[in-house]
C-alpha cells in the first residue's frame, strides 16, 4: 500500500530523517516508535505532504506521490491526525467531520452557491454519513456542539473520525492516545482494531509501548532520524539495539 523508499530530509544542517525506507501492508496496523526527537512526526509530515523530501520516493497504491501537496495526498487516500489537536474549534463537531469529507465532494462552486438539487442531495448524504461516523465513536450526541467544547479525549476521537471522513485507504495517527486515561486507552485500542477491520490500513506513532505491542502487526523503530530496527512486536521487544536506545535515551 504505502512504500517509502530511502527518504531523506534535512533542515539546515540537521538531518531529521535519514535514508528511511518502510512499508505499510494492506489492512495492517503498522507502528512507528522511537525516542523523542527521533524524527517520527517529521516522517509523518513527509508522508502527508507537509514537507517534500530532499531525496527518496513515496509510492502509494502504485502511484508516486513524492512532492505532492497535502490536499492532493488526502485526495489520493491518505488521511491523518495531529500530535497537537488541530480541530476547527469554532465549528461544530458535525462540521468538522464534513470538512474531513471535503476531497470526496463532487458539487462544484456554482452548484454550492445556488444550492442546486444535486448539491442538496449530496449534502444530505454527507450529513447522514457524518452522523454515522460520529455514532461509530460515540460522539453523535455532541454533533451540534462546538468542537472546542469537547473533552480532551473526545477531541482526540473527533480527530480520528475527521480523518476517516475522506474514506482513506491509509490513516496516519500521530500519538492518538496522548493525554488519555487508561480506560480511554483501552477503548481507543478497540476502536483502532475496528477501523483496521473496516479495511483502513493504519500507520501509528505512539509512546505507550503496551498499546503498541498489543495493537501493531509490524513495528518500525526510528532513532536520530535513522531506521534502527523493524519487525513483529515480539522481535522488537527482544531487539538489543531498541532496548539500548530506549534505556539509554530516556
Amino acid at each position: 500500500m504505502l512504500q517509502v523508499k530511502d527518504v531523506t530530509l534535512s533542515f539546515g544542517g540537521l538531518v531529521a530523517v535519514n535514508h528511511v525506507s518502510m512499508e505499510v501492508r494492506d489492512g495492517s496496523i503498522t507502528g512507528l516508535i522511537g525516542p523523542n526527537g527521533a524524527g517520527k512526526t517529521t516522517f509523518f509530515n513527509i508522508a502527508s505532504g507537509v514537507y517534500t523530501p530532499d531525496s527518496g520516493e513515496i509510492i502509494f497504491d502504485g502511484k508516486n506521490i513524492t512532492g505532492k501537496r497535502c490536499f492532493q495526498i488526502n485526495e489520493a487516500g491518505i488521511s491523518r491526525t495531529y500530535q497537537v489537536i488541530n480541530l476547527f474549534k469554532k465549528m461544530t463537531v458535525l462540521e468538522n467531520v464534513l470538512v474531513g469529507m471535503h476531497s470526496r465532494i463532487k458539487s462544484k462552486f456554482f452548484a454550492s452557491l445556488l444550492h442546486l438539487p444535486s448539491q442538496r442531495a449530496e449534502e444530505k448524504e454527507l450529513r447522514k454519513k457524518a452522523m454515522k461516523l460520529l455514532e461509530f465513536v460515540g460522539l453523535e450526541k455532541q454533533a451540534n456542539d462546538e468542537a472546542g467544547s469537547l473533552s480532551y479525549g473526545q477531541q482526540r476521537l473527533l480527530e480520528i473520525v475527521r480523518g476517516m471522513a475522506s474514506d482513506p485507504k491509509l490513516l496516519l495517527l500521530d500519538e492518538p492516545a496522548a493525554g488519555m486515561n487508561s480506560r480511554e486507552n483501552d477503548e481507543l485500542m478497540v476502536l483502532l482494531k475496528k477501523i483496521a477491520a473496516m479495511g483502513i490500513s493504519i500507520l501509528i506513532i505512539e509512546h505507550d509501548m503496551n498499546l503498541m505491542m498489543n495493537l501493531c502487526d509490524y513495528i518500525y523503530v526510528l532513532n536520530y532520524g535513522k531506521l534502527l530496527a523493524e519487525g513483529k512486536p515480539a522481535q522488537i521487544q527482544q531487539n538489543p539495539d531498541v532496548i539500548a536506545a530506549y534505556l539509554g535515551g530516556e
Partner: protein
Amino acid sequence: MKRTQKNLKRPLLALLAVLLLSVPLIFSGFPYAILICCFILLYVIAVSGLDIVFGYCGQISMGHAAFFAIGAYGSCLLHDYCGIPIMLTMVIAAVLAASVGAVIAYPASKLVFHFLSLATLSFGEIVYQIISHSPGGITNNFVGYYTESINFFGLTLDTYPRFYYYALGCAVLFLTAKQMLVNSQVGRAFIAIRENHHAADGMGVNVRKYKVIAFAVSAFYTAFAGAMYAHLVRYISPDTFMQKQSVMFLTMLLFGGTASLAGPICGVTVVMLLNELLRSAERYQMFIYGILLLAVIVLIPGGIYGTVEKAIKNVFRRKKEATKDAAG
C-alpha cells in the same frame, strides 16, 4: 420551544419585509432619508463581501476600496466608451474586479495576515494612484467623473425611491447568495481555513484555491456595490476610494460583527446613522471613528450583533438549564 421560535420567525420576517418595502412611503416627504437608506443597502453589499473574505475565510483585506473603485469606474467607463447598457456594465465591472482579486490573491495567499494586510494596502494604493493619475486621463483624474442613472429595463432609476427598490432587490439577492455559499462545502472550507489552515490542508482542502475564491467572490460583491454607488450619485472622484474607505468597510464590519448575515447589516446601519449624527461635526468625524473602532476592538471584539447574539444565547441557555433543573 423550537416551535415557538419558528412560529415567531415568520411574522417577524413578514413585518420586516413590509417595513423595508414601505421605507419610501414612510419618508415620502424626506428624500434625503431615502438616499441614506440607499447608501445603507449598497454598503451592506460591499461589507458583506468583505465579510466573506475576512469574517469567514479569515483573510484580512485593507484594500477593498480598490474593488469598490474598479466596480465604480469600470461600470462608468464601459458604459461611456463602449456604449454597453449600465445594467450589464455593472456586472462586467464586478466580474473584472473578481478576476483582479483572484490575480492578486494567488501570490498573496501564501502571506500571513500581517503581510497580507501590507499587500492588500499596497494594492489599494496602486489602484488609487491609477484612477487619480489615469493613462490618458480617461478617468478625469481628480476632477471626477460624471455618469448616468441605471436604466432598469426601460425604467430610469433616477429618483431615490426607484433606486431604493432596486438596491433592496440587489441586497436581498446578494445576501441570500452569501448565506447559500457559506452554508455549503465552500463556506465550510473557508471557515476551516480561518480556524486552522494546516488542518484544512491536511483534510483535503486546497487552501490556496479557496483563498483565491474567497477573494474573488468578495471583490465581486464590493465592486458591484461600487457600481451601484457610482450610478446612484452619478459622480465619482478618487476621494471616495482612498484607503480611508477600506478602513471604513472594516470598521463597519467589526462594528456589526463578523461571519454572520446580520453583522454587516447592523454595522453599516449604525455607522451610517452615526455618520449623519456627526455630519455637523465633520471635523471630528474621523477622530471619533478612530476612538469608536478602538473601543469596539478593546471592549466588544465580537461587534454589536455578535455580542447581542451571545447574550441572547446565554439567556436561552440559562432558561434551558433552569427548566432542566426544575424538571430534574
